């Protein structure tokens, strides 16, 4: 009873890090329910994946078929709806990723399973499942209770459950693919690699990141001058790219570049977790934002609560002085 399933996520032949975080979360839940943890692996000849999962779960369930070489939520839903209906785990976990976001909200209602997404923390007590999520641009946390049911589906935010090595020895079970073909109504064609731009921001020691606070395309030139004074390059958040103020290859975050510069100066960036995920590995983070409660300040080493347009010229002058 109280079985926990975690869905293995892989892409282009590599298991994605979120998988090990899901398994860590799953072990924690299994210890609360007294159940065991199963890693559910859909793949094409996934023996190498099995090896890296063996120590992570009580069981690895393998569905080996060329249909699962790449992720297609329609194929996954076809297979998993049958597996979950027959196995009836109490909780199935997947990543709140491009993969889980495309699968969970259709799979769960197809099985009448209560679900919620982007969970930071989970608890099971007295048969009740509760989750902690974020709302309102990450400015508030919400504790939510799921409708009681035999089975639940949840997606987990990246970076919330540190991966570990519990040294388990999983039983390996294999299941024949419950589906015979990729559904005609949705076919995976190919991957398209990101376009390479003129500047590779991941190679720079200093990055000046700008967010919505930059307000207008015309203000980018001022930021570029400032970055030049610091000997760095300009990066940005997603809304800046969406507004076409800077090209996509300058975007820092989960759907853009992951950067680890020596210095990251965040200007007018509130600190959406998708952006933080791409820059929190920086050695030193300086944040300038008007809102004292902006989440960026929790990630930064030094903060200035002020208008970026007042700070940029003043700081640029001091830096040029020190450089001599």
């Amino acid at each position, binding site marked *: 009873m109280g079985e926990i399933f975690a869905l293995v996520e892989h892409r282009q032949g590599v298991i994605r890090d979120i998988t090990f975080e899901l398994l860590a979360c799953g072990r924690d839940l299994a210890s609360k329910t007294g159940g065991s943890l199963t890693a559910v692996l859909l793949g094409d000849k996934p023996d190498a994946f099995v090896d890296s999962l063996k120590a992570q779960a009580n069981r690895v369930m393998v569905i080996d078929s060329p249909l699962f070489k790449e992720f297609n939520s329609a194929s996954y839903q076809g297979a998993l709806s049958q597996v979950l209906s027959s196995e009836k785990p109490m909780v199935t976990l997947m990543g709140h990723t491009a993969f889980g976001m495309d699968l969970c909200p259709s799979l*769960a209602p197809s099985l009448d399973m209560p679900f919620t997404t982007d969970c930071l923390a989970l608890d099971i007590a007295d048969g009740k499942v509760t989750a902690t999520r974020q709302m309102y641009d990450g400015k508030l946390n919400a504790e939510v209770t799921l409708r009681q049911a035999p089975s639940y589906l949840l997606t987990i935010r990246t970076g919330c459950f540190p991966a570990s090595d519990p040294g388990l020895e999983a039983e390996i079970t294999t299941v024949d693919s419950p589906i015979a073909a990729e559904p005609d109504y949705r076919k995976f064609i190919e991957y398209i690699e990101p376009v390479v731009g003129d500047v590779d921001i991941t190679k720079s020691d200093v990055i000046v990141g700008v967010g919505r606070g930059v307000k207008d395309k015309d203000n980018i030139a001022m930021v570029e001058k400032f970055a030049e004074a610091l000997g760095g390059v300009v990066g940005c958040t997603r809304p800046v790219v969406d507004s076409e103020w800077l090209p996509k290859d300058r975007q820092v975050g989960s759907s853009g570049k992951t950067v680890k510069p020596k210095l990251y100066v965040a200007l007018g960036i509130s600190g959406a977790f998708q952006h933080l995920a791409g820059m929190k590995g920086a050695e030193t983070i300086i944040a300038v934002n008007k809102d004292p409660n902006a989440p960026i300040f929790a990630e930064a080493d030094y903060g200035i609560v002020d208008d970026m347009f007042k700070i940029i010229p003043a700081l640029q002058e001091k*830096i040029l002085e020190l450089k001599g």
Partner: protein
Amino acid sequence: MNIIVCIKRVPQTAEAEVKVDSSGKDIERERLTFDMNEYDTFALEEAVLFKEKFGGTVTAMSVGREDAQDTLRIALAKGADSAVRIKAEDFDEIDAIKTAQLLKAALKDIGYDIIFCGSIATDDAYSQVGVALAQLLGIPHATLVTQIEADQGRAQVHRELEGGLLEHLDMALPAVIAVQSGISVPRYASLIAIRKAAKKEIKTIGSDEIAADDLRADIVIDKLFPPPVTKMAEILTGDPSEVSEKLSKIIKDKGLI
């Protein structure tokens, strides 16, 4: 082509302070401004682009309270032909799956060839409604869509994966397309269009048309609270010149200039 776009009126919280109200389960709304969910502005633009390319009509739908009409009127001013409000006040505790159920019920008498929505709403951040709606309607879906081209009942769709990687899908229509921000640049409404939209009728659908007993929410919010602060930046204080003096020394001491 019958084109549907689902939109939501949300508080604009990206650059505002958000406070929990006395119930502990909701936010203080008084000092916040409300507007169309940013992701839905991209969905609306894509819907209008589809109409311009293929002909047909755009119907904007929203589950919301009376003030959602203002947001629907923006959609009308930007190119939607008609608007439907599903009266949120008739159905308590609306989560994402219940929103999808309401949209499905409201779509019963409206034909559709494609349904656009945003991939996420910035208030509750579920990223569920579009994908769940497709499941309830029994049609395919894709979320995080950054490009779509339709031809003869099929669509070539690009989805954005992590790290800027895209995936190309070949899909059947009708489908629900939940768009990623940045798929296109949303247009502005002209003053004339805004004036015209103000006079248009907005259809409402409520508990007279949709049986509330048939609906089911998956979650209830027990409480809202500010995220615990585990770490905080050292805040430098002073006027711009003073803080710049301090900061430039820190940068120099770290050997960065």
